[in-house]
């Protein structure tokens, strides 16, 4: 009888059997043992009841299993990449590589005349991609591959914030009346804005229930926030080469180095090694940028403005130190008390 029931359990879906099979068998065995102790008629009655209920239960389990599969298919997609996989690495490094390719295209584009609609189409496509990726990343709960994209958006937003302050003529006020101009340049408000936006992002992920898992992930692995800030790198690099001429090969090389730092980050498991990958990537990228700037100023005749090597090296050094410092701040998340985490699936 018990063997027959064990055989009938094959009517249930495999996952259901794995989850409940042993329990079902144990409960059936107990009820048959108790029924047999009472008498043969009671045992027959129990057996009939079991046989009567089983087909409906099996059908129900199949339907539930199908519903679950449909649900998981609905939420899963080709954008759910395995951490550390080639696809995840490629998706995460796209902002760096895309910027590099666009810079090189811009350089080569000087040698042919592009139709008037080409730059307009490019801008529309670029912003549609940014918006689309932002929505996709948000819908997917901000996966790791998406963090550099968020970094790019944060950098753009902090520039808008900075320009807003300039529009309010706060820079003029700062230079004329704050008295702090000698110790703190107004330009550093770009970094203050970035910091402010990161704090806002953290606070929002802490408060908005939908983004609680993201906040918890940042608490579990603080280097994720550093990686997000690393994503500001391409935009910052493009900014520091503003008003240069023939700078594209240098910018492209700096972006490539930045992408390599990201590659090592994604391929490492130890948090400190990951963090070191980002810091080394940033330092080397800024070194390439500084060396390239010096070379352009000294040997290129096409520079529009009179840059000095010393001034530009100091500016690049400051930029590097600001970004390296901001990328180190997430380490402080470790110092906050950690809640006992519940079992996560």
């Amino acid at each position, binding site marked *: 009888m018990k063997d027959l029931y064990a055989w009938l359990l094959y009517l249930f879906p495999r996952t259901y059997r794995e989850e409940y099979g042993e329990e*079902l068998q*144990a409960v059936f065995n107990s*009820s048959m043992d108790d029924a047999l102790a009472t008498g043969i008629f009671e045992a027959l009655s129990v057996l009939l009841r079991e046989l009567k*209920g*089983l087909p*409906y*239960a099996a059908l129900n*389990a199949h339907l*539930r299993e199908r519903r679950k599969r449909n649900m998981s298919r609905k939420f899963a997609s080709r954008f759910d990449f395995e951490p550390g996989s080639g696809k995840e690495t490629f998706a995460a490094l796209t902002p760096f590589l895309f910027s590099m390719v666009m810079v090189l295209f811009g350089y080569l584009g000087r040698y042919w005349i592009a139709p008037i609609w080409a730059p307009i189409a490019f801008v529309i496509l670029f912003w549609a991609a940014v918006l689309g990726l932002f929505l996709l990343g948000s819908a997917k709960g901000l996966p790791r591959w998406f963090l550099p994209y968020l970094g790019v958006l944060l950098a753009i937003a902090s520039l808008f914030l900075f320009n807003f302050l300039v529009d309010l003529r706060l820079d003029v006020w700062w230079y004329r009346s704050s008295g702090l101009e000698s110790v703190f340049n107004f330009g550093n408000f770009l970094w203050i804005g970035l910091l402010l936006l990161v704090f806002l992002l953290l606070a929002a992920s802490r408060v908005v229930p939908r983004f609680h898992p993201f906040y918890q992930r940042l608490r579990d692995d603080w280097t994720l926030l550093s990686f997000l800030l690393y994503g500001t790198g391409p935009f910052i690099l493009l900014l520091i080469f503003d008003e240069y001429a023939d700078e594209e090969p240098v910018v492209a090389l700096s972006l490539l180095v930045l992408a390599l730092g990201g590659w090592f980050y994604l391929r490492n498991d130890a948090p400190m090694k990951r963090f070191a990958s980002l810091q080394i990537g940033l330092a080397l990228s800024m070194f390439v940028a500084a060396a390239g700037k010096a070379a352009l100023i000294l040997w290129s005749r096409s520079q529009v403005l009179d840059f000095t090597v010393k001034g530009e090296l100091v500016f690049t050094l400051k930029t590097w130190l600001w970004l390296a410092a901001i990328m180190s701040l997430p380490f402080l998340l470790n110092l906050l008390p950690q809640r006992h985490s519940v079992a996560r699936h």
Partner: protein
Amino acid sequence: MSADHLAYLPLTEPTFYILLSLAPGKKHGYAIMKDVRALSGGRVRLSTSTLYTALGRLLEQELIERLSEEQGGGPGLPRKFYALTDMGRRVLEAETVRLQGMLREARLRLREGGT
């Protein structure tokens, strides 16, 4: 307090007895099956598969939870325990209040009809 639990009402008789069986504390499958039979005076006799279909649905609705495996009963028998969640307890309490209301009204009307 949220009124989400009211969405589960009314409960079917087997569901009500399963939740009621778990009200004093956690139980394993066979203990629930026997308790449901006892609570209903022998009227509700669940088969193993019907019981587990109901338990699966209640787990999905988060009215009960499945606790980690412990060894009990006989040697080698897997024992997963089931317990009411806070939401499950609220649903059971709300159903009890609903049934009490029905009973009160029924008694009143029957008394009126009898006099």
